């Protein structure tokens, strides 16, 4: 045990407004506490319901460091179960996706479970007669997570049995997910293929912070976006030549500081926030024939214009996903260790919209977020240099004070200059809140509960 376990005061002292202590990124004890407290108390993204469209379909993933299965039960509802046989601990499902039929069957001793986790059968069950088996943990079947919510197709779970409700946790931030789904004339998304999987030797929070870091694109990405702009100019195309799709995607990364200042950042309570309140790098994509017509038919012209007029850039759902509504992309930052993060980047197709939209989204995903991406390469280089640089003693604080204001109130929604680091501070405010919500010596907690 180090100095942070059961010590909420020490956790809170790591975040002091303008700065955060390096231990939040590099300390293995902090990582373990994040898994135990932060990822248990908050609502964490699991998957999309179109990944498990039929009864018995399952998808294996993890919430923090907890292996879980998203599965569609016989009543059509999605359940999220811990991926562990209650008998000896064997993982029940190893495939990333599959169909298990009416029940899961452990490959070790053939204990079987309904797709809601209930124990169905044990071979040679008489061996447990008169052994007090009913009292055993194992008799309850596969354990379900604390709570599950299917919000317009997106599955979120809270591991803790008790805690904040889904609605209270996300509040007004759900408007970004709504906008992403509303962009389908049918109001429905479907996952398009498997996600990119990109391994990062850095702390997961560096990636989350980078989603609303608007002062890095023109610097870190000069080598890719800047070179693209230069190559395009060298081609000397006639005035008014439309940009090819790849240039439409990459050129805005080189926008000036003013562009990013004016785009705005909105923050919501509990660590959520987004860039691109007024415009974003996705605002000027060319129109796809037939799309607006399909949207107008589904929603009426005025509503269709309102939906498509919203061009939010990156929306962070604390703790560990980011979505891009205008292009139907979701990235999940899965923490594997204090210095190791797996990034999975999903794309979705808009049901009843032209295929060209999915094609553009797929292009964005591979150009920007693949392990082979010339943009991603420089981001990863920055994170890994930071992870190594933080080892330096005598300089123990990381600065997050751009456009800091005294007495910032993170419990209210605000809109600020698009280069503020307020959203990073907002995340750390929520970080302390959900790290310490159920922390403290057991005696203290039970006394408080009794009072």
């Amino acid at each position, binding site marked *: 045990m180090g100095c942070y376990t059961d010590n909420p005061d020490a956790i809170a002292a790591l975040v002091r407004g303008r700065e955060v202590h390096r231990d939040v990124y590099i300390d293995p004890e902090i990582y373990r506490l994040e898994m135990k407290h932060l990822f248990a108390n908050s609502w964490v993204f699991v998957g999309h319901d179109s990944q498990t469209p039929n009864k018995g379909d399952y998808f294996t993933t993890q919430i923090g460091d907890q292996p879980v299965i998203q599965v569609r039960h016989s009543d059509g509802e999605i359940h999220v179960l811990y991926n562990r046989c209650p008998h000896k601990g064997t993982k029940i499902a190893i495939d990333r996706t599959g169909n298990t039929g009416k029940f899961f069957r452990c490959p070790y001793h053939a204990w079987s479970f309904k797709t809601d986790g209930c124990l169905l059968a044990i071979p040679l069950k008489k061996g447990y007669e008169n052994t007090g088996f009913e009292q055993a943990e194992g008799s309850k079947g596969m354990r379900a997570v604390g709570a599950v919510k299917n919000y317009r197709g997106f599955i979120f779970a809270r591991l803790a049995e008790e805690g904040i409700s889904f609605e209270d946790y996300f509040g007004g931030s759900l408007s970004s997910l709504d906008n992403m789904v509303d962009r389908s004339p049918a109001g429905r998304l479907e996952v398009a*293929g498997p996600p990119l999987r990109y391994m990062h030797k850095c702390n997961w929070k560096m990636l989350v912070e980078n989603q609303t870091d608007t002062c890095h694109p023109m610097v870190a990405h000069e*080598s890719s976006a800047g070179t693209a702009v230069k190559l395009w100019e060298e081609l000397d195309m006639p005035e008014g030549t439309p940009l090819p799709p790849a240039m439409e995607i990459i050129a805005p990364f080189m926008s000036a500081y003013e562009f990013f200042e004016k785009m705005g950042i909105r923050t919501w309570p509990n660590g959520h926030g987004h860039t691109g309140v007024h415009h974003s790098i996705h605002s000027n994509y060319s129109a796809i024939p037939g799309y607006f017509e399909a949207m107008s038919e589904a929603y009426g012209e005025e509503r269709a214009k309102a939906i498509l007029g919203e061009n939010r850039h990156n929306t962070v759902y604390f703790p560990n996903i980011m979505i891009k509504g205008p292009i139907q992309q979701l990235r999940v930052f899965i923490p594997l260790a204090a210095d190791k993060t797996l990034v999975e980047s999903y794309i979705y197709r808009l049901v009843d919209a032209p*295929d060209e939209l999915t*094609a553009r989204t797929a292009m964005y995903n*591979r150009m920007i977020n693949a392990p082979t991406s010339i943009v991603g390469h420089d981001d990863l280089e920055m994170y890994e240099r930071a992870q190594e640089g933080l080892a330096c003693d005598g300089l123990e604080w990381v600065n997050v004070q751009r456009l800091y204001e005294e007495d910032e109130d993170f419990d209210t929604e605000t809109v600020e200059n698009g280069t503020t680091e307020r959203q990073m501070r907002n995340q750390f405010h929520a970080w302390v809140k959900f790290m310490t919500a159920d922390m403290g010596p057991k005696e203290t907690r039970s006394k408080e509960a009794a009072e």
Partner: protein
Amino acid sequence: MSLTRDDLIDFIYDEARMLDEGRYDEWLALWQKDGHYWMPLDYKQTDPIQVTSLMYEDIFMLKLRVERLNGARTFSQKPKSRCHHVLSRPYVDEMDNEAGRYVTTTFMHYVETRLDDQFLLALTARHELALVDGKIMIANKRVDILNCDAAFGNIQLLP
């Protein structure tokens, strides 16, 4: 003019050597203007457009990729990566001298290194080649990574 199997096989070896030696201008000159370099994300992927790939790049993107490698502010290439292809003898799958169209399949091991890190990828490269004005050109190239669905760190050069 008609090509022999050896002409095609020599071409595949020469192309890999250009990549290993960083002779990118020569390499780009091998490509037909409407060609694509495709690296699927999924095992036996059939669609490069409607789902994500690791790469699906036209000549403009390939040019951008190799131009970037030499940029003054290409931070992930300070210091530079190096790569190495080991080829087994290419299979000539299709050979149509009349149309000037050819297809080869080549199994390769690809090693890329930078600083203290080095990784190995097992590849299957499928080349669609064309004979244009007496020169062999790459019409399209598909590179399948054996563990394409695994999580990778940076793959910075061209497997």
